[in-house]
């Protein structure tokens, strides 16, 4: 079965097309905050390179984060809409599961001087969580992901990014669940309880 995989949880948007677990075409586009601009053109590009029509895609896989929210939602709503039109199921996965393989701790940029992290020992061991690198008590496993955090973690970080193969591996068994993003933080907003007077 043909699977279209999409992830926009990190600054590199990932689109891949696979037949079973064989990746036919894949693109990792360093797009920063331009996921919305670049995602659909990248989908078109990957389909073209794989020689596949969108209508032939049998299922989609999309990263649910954690990741910066605005870009994250671009990937999720795109996958949901594509799946809606072609009538294919859309499976949501934890994006961190798609970084590296085997026993490891994955760290990615959560902005605000924090990282998203999740630990794996064959299966997920702890997390996903978000926090300041200095304050995290991570399991003693190799750390992979965003190497810019090595110094603040006090540990070596092997550079690794989300991959199509990783997204495919991360798909849980069974029917797809609702595509609920892994936000991990509440919206920043404080209820206005008391109105400040304009006069003193």
């Amino acid at each position, binding site marked *: 079965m043909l699977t279209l995989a999409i992830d926009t949880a990190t600054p590199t948007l990932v689109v891949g097309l696979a037949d079973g677990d064989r990746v036919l075409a894949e693109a990792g586009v360093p797009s920063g905050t*331009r996921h919305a601009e670049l995602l*659909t053109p990248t*989908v*078109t590009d990957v389909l073209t390179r794989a020689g596949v029509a969108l209508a032939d895609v049998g299922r989609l896989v999309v990263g649910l984060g954690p990741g910066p929210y605005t870009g994250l*939602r671009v990937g999720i709503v*795109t996958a949901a*809409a594509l799946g809606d039109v072609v009538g294919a199921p859309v499976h949501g996965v934890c994006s961190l599961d798609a970084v590296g393989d085997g026993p490891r701790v994955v760290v990615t940029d959560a902005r605000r001087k924090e990282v998203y992290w999740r630990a794996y020992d064959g299966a997920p061991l702890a997390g996903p969580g978000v926090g300041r690198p200095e304050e995290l008590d991570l399991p003693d496993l190799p750390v992979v992901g965003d190497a810019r955090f090595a110094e603040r973690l006090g540990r070596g970080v092997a550079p690794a990014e989300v991959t199509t193969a990783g997204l495919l591996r991360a798909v849980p068994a069974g029917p797809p669940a609702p595509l609920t993003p892994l936000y991990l933080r509440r919206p*920043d907003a404080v209820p206005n309880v008391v109105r400040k007077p*304009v*006069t003193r």
Partner: protein
Amino acid sequence: MAEPLVLGFETSCDETGIGLVRGHTLLSDALATSMAEHERFGGVVPEIASRAHLEAMVPTVHRALADAGAALSDVDAVAVTSGPGLTGALLVGVAAAKAYALALGVPLYGVNHLAAHVAVDELEHGRLAEPSIAMLVSGGHSSILLVPDLSQDVVELGRTIDDAAGEAFDKVARVLDLPFPGGPPIDRAAQEGTASIAFPRGLTGPRDPAYDFSFSGLKTAVARWVEAQQRDGVHVSVPDVAASFQEAVVDVLTAKAVRACRDHGVDHLVIGGGVAANSRLRAVAQERCDAAGIVLRVPSRRLCTDNGAMVAALGSRLVMAGVAPSQPDLGADSSLPIDVVSR
């Protein structure tokens, strides 16, 4: 294409609006709103709105299709608000619209939210007279526009230099302990009151810009007046304050809109945006337009506030005018200038 079926997406603020329009005919207008979730914050929280858009998107598309008795495969073009608005909120709609257009193999039109507020009137009152003067008044915008050709030529004559008109309603509602959003409760309260307090009319002096607005000073004047009364232990009549505030806003808006028509020799005025649902604005605009020999067009209240049909209406106009669709790298522009009708 004579009568294209256009699917419109609107997510610039807190309403997820999906509309279907064929030509100038409204087929459906499905809406999901996160309004209630913002109430305790006294204003729209962008992240809450964006989260709600994502949840509502696909179900709302299907509600619009079901209401219209249409299938996705019937859609000829997709239109989406690509600005102005809240970036995170806009991007949910833009990404969804791009994906639907790609998967359906139909052209995509990224359109201007403000021009769409004008276009929606064509669904009820037929093709717009051109040129028209348009006044857009909402929680996020207050502008007067000259519209020689809605599909490609819109000129901004003036805009608010501080708060939008709807923002002033929200803030004054807070002063009066009325709920958010402030427009409807102030409108209701004002109907029981008298506009007996002389609140200031911003930017109406002889040397002030003719078509610009300022509502920040008015809001502060209302708050000062109320606080002074309370300090003196005098009972504050909420209906009278609401009526007086509303009168000040409506007086300035209508005077400037009519003046824009006169100055430009244009005898058609269209008013759009959420504040156009205000009953006093509708009444005074009608009186003043009648007196000045101007034909006034205001959409029904349901179509004044943000919705997907307005985006589909503008998209339909663009398709029929032969305007080029958007490029595949369309994004969102939170401060999209009004003279960019589509991009």
